[in-house]
C-alpha cells in the first residue's frame, strides 16, 4: 500500500510538472502572439502612410535631430521609398511597390499568428487534461477507480467450458489460434486430446465449484433468515395473489456442454449456468451501495435490499482503499439466481434456487417441522414432475391431477383456462375442491414451507413435458439436491393419472426415436427398392 501511495505521489508530481510545462508553452505562445499583433499593427499604419504619402510632392515636417532636437524641414521625393528587404539588402521603389511589399509581409505575419493561435489552443486543452489528471491522482475529485480482480479461474473455466464443442472429439473454439501456426492435421489431434482433457478437467472443476457454492450458501445463512421472515410474512397473507411462490426451475438454456448423461449434467448445469447468469448480471450492474441487482429490484420487502446492501457493504468495506483514490474492487460474487415468473394476477414469483437448495438442506438437517414431512416432501419441487404432482387440485381420495398446470387456479372460473377433455362436472368439482383446498392450504401455511402455497403458476419456465428424458425418475443428481432421488421415488404412486399421461407421452416419444433411425431418404429408399 505504501508503495502504491508512493507511486501515486510520484505520479501526481509528474502530472503537476506536466501541467506546468504546458502552461509555460501557453504563456510563450501568448507572448509571441502579442508580438506579432504589434507587428501587424505597425504594418497597417505603414500602409496607411504609404497611401497618403504620394498625395503631395513635399511635406513640411519637423525633422528629428538626435533624440532630443527637431528641425523644420521638408519631406521630398514622396514617392521614393527605400525598403529593407532583409539581411542588409535595400531597394528603392515607389510607394505602391512598397505597399505591395508591405502586403506581402502582412501575409507572412498573419500566417505566423494563425499557427501560434492553433498551438495555444492545443496546449490550453492539454493543460486542462493535465489538471484533470492531477485531480484524479490527488483524489480530490469525484473520480472513483473501479478495479476488478480477475484471479478467479472458475469464471474463466466456466466460460471456456461454454465454448467447448458439443462433441468431445471436435475442435474446441479455443484452439483456433493454433491453426495459423500449425498444420491442420496436427491441430486436430491436439485439439482432440486437449478437448477431452479439458472436458475431464472441467468436470472436476465443476465438482469443486459445487462445493464452493455450497460453502457460500452456508455462509449466507444469516442473510437467508431475513428472506425467510419475508416468506412467512407473505404466507400468512391468505390472498394467494400476494403471496410469494417458490418454484424450482431448471434452466438448461445456453449450456451446450454434454459429455456424460444428462443426469450428470443436471445439477452441474444449473449451478454453473446459474453462476453464469449471476456473473452476467453482476457484470451489468454498477457496484454501488445503493443500487439493487436486477433480480431483487421488484421485491416488495426490505429484506432483499438488506441482504444486498450487506453484501455490497462487505465488498465495499473489505476493499475500501487506503489508496489515494477510492477504489472499489468489483468481484463476481455468486448470487442466487432470481427468476421472476409472471403468474396470473399481479403476482411475480421470485425464485431463488440457491435458497431453495439451502432450505432443503436445512430441512433435511432439522428434519422436524411443524408441518408434516410428507407434506413438504410433497411440496418440494425439484423437477417439473413435481409440479405435476403438486398441481393436484383435490386430495380427498385420490389427487386429481390437473390437465394443465399453466392455468392459474384463480382463473379456473374463467372459461378460457381449461382446454382439457374433462367434463363440465369435473370442472365444477375441481373448482369447488380447488377453492376449499386453497383455503385449507392457506391455513396450513407454514414458515419453513417456502414452496407452493400457490397452485397458480401461469407462465413457468419449465421444460415442456415432451422432453421426458430429462426429467425421468432416473436422474442421477449430485448435491445440492440429494433429496430429489428419494423424493422422486415417493412421487410415482401418488400420480396414477399423470403417470399414465406420461406413459402416453413416453410412448409417442419412444416411437419417433424408433422411427428416426428407420427413416431413410427418398432416394435411398428408391434405390433399395430398385435393388
Amino acid at each position, binding site marked *: 500500500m505504501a508503495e502504491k501511495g508512493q507511486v501515486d505521489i510520484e505520479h501526481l508530481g509528474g502530472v503537476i510538472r506536466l501541467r506546468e510545462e504546458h502552461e509555460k508553452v501557453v504563456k510563450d505562445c501568448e507572448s509571441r502572439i502579442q508580438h506579432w499583433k504589434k507587428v501587424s499593427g505597425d504594418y497597417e499604419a505603414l500602409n496607411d502612410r504609404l497611401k497618403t504619402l504620394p498625395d503631395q510632392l513635399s511635406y513640411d515636417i519637423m525633422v528629428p535631430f538626435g533624440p532630443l532636437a527637431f528641425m523644420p524641414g521638408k519631406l521630398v521625393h514622396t514617392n521614393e521609398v*527605400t*525598403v529593407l*528587404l*532583409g*539581411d*542588409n*539588402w*535595400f*531597394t*528603392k*521603389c515607389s510607394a505602391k*511597390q512598397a505597399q*505591395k*511589399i508591405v502586403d*506581402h509581409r502582412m501575409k*507572412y505575419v498573419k500566417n505566423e499568428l494563425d499557427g501560434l493561435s492553433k498551438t495555444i489552443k492545443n496546449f490550453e486543452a492539454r493543460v486542462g487534461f493535465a489538471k484533470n489528471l492531477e485531480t484524479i491522482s490527488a483524489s480530490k475529485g469525484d473520480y472513483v477507480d473501479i478495479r476488478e480482480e480477475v484471479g478467479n479461474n472458475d469464471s474463466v473455466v466456466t466460460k471456456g467450458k461454454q465454448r467447448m464443442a458439443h462433441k468431445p472429439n471436435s475442435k474446441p473454439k479455443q484452439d483456433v489460434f493454433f491453426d495459423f501456426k500449425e498444420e491442420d492435421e496436427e491441430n486436430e489431434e491436439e485439439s482432440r486430446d486437449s478437448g477431452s482433457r479439458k472436458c475431464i478437467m472441467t468436470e472436476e472443476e465443476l465438482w469443486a465449484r459445487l462445493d464452493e457454492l455450497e460453502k457460500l450458501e452456508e455462509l449466507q445463512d444469516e442473510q437467508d433468515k431475513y428472506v425467510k421472515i419475508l416468506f412467512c410474512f407473505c404466507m400468512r397473507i391468505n390472498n394467494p395473489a400476494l403471496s410469494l411462490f417458490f418454484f424450482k426451475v431448471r434452466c438448461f438454456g445456453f449450456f451446450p456442454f454434454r459429455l456424460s448423461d444428462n443426469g450428470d449434467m443436471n445439477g452441474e448445469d444449473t449451478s454453473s449456468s446459474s453462476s453464469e447468469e449471476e456473473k452476467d448480471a453482476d457484470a451489468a450492474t454498477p457496484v454501488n451501495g445503493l443500487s439493487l441487482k436486477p433480480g431483487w429490484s421488484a421485491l416488495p420487502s426490505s429484506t432483499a435490499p438488506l441482504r444486498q446492501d450487506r453484501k455490497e457493504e462487505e465488498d465495499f468495506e473489505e476493499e475500501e482503499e487506503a489508496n489515494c483514490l477510492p477504489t472499489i474492487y468489483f468481484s463476481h460474487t455468486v448470487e442466487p439466481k432470481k427468476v421472476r415468473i409472471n403468474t396470473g394476477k399481479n403476482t411475480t414469483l421470485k425464485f431463488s434456487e440457491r435458497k431453495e437448495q439451502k432450505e432443503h438442506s436445512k430441512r433435511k438437517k432439522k428434519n422436524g417441522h411443524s408441518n408434516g414431512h410428507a407434506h413438504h416432501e410433497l411440496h418440494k419441487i425439484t423437477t417439473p414432475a413435481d409440479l405435476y404432482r403438486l398441481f393436484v387440485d383435490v386430495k380427498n381420495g385420490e389427487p386429481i391431477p390437473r390437465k394443465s398446470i399453466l392455468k392459474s387456479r384463480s382463473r379456473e372460473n374463467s372459461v378460457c383456462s381449461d382446454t382439457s377433455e374433462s367434463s363440465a362436472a369435473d370442472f365444477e368439482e375441481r373448482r369447488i375442491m380447488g377453492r376449499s383446498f386453497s383455503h385449507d392450504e392457506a391455513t396450513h401455511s407454514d414458515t419453513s414451507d417456502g414452496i407452493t402455497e400457490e397452485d397458480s403458476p401461469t407462465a413457468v419456465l419449465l421444460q415442456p413435458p415432451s422432453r421426458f428424458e430429462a426429467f425421468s425418475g432416473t436422474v442421477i443428481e449430485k448435491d445440492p439436491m440429494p433429496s430429489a432421488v428419494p423424493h422422486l421415488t415417493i412421487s410415482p404412486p401418488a400420480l396414477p393419472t399423470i403417470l399414465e399421461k406420461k406413459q402416453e407421452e413416453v410412448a409417442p416419444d419412444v416411437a419417433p426415436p424408433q422411427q428416426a433411425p428407420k427413416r431413410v431418404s427418398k432416394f435411398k429408399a428408391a434405390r433399395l427398392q430398385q435393388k
Partner: protein
Amino acid sequence: MAEAIQKKLKVEVEKYAQMQKEVSKSMSARQKLETQLTENNIVKEELDLLDCSNTVYKLIGPVLVKQDLDEAKATVAKRLEYINGEIQRYETLLKDMEKKSEQHREVLSSLQQEFQKAQGLAVGKV
C-alpha cells in the same frame, strides 16, 4: 577504493558537462542559421518581385552601396546555398556530439553504481 571511484566520477562529470556545452553551442549556431535562411528566402522573393527600375542597395557598415538587381539576386542565392550547407554541417556535428554525450552518460552511470557499491561496502565494513 571509494575515493578513487569518486575521483573518476568527478572527471567523468566534468567531461560530460563539457560535452553538453558544446552541444548547446552548436544548437544555438544552428538556430541562427535557420533564421538567416528564412530571411534570405524572403529577400529572394522580394527581389524576384522587383523589376529593373528599382535600384538595389546593400548596407555595408554605414554605407549603402548600389548593387545591380541581377547581382543582388545572385548574391542572395549564393548566400542561401551557403547557409544551407552550414546548417547541414552543424546537424552532423550535433549528432556526433549527442552520441558522445550518450557514451559519457553510460560511463557516468556505471561509475556511479560502482561508487554506490563501494560506499555500501564501506558502510558495511564500518
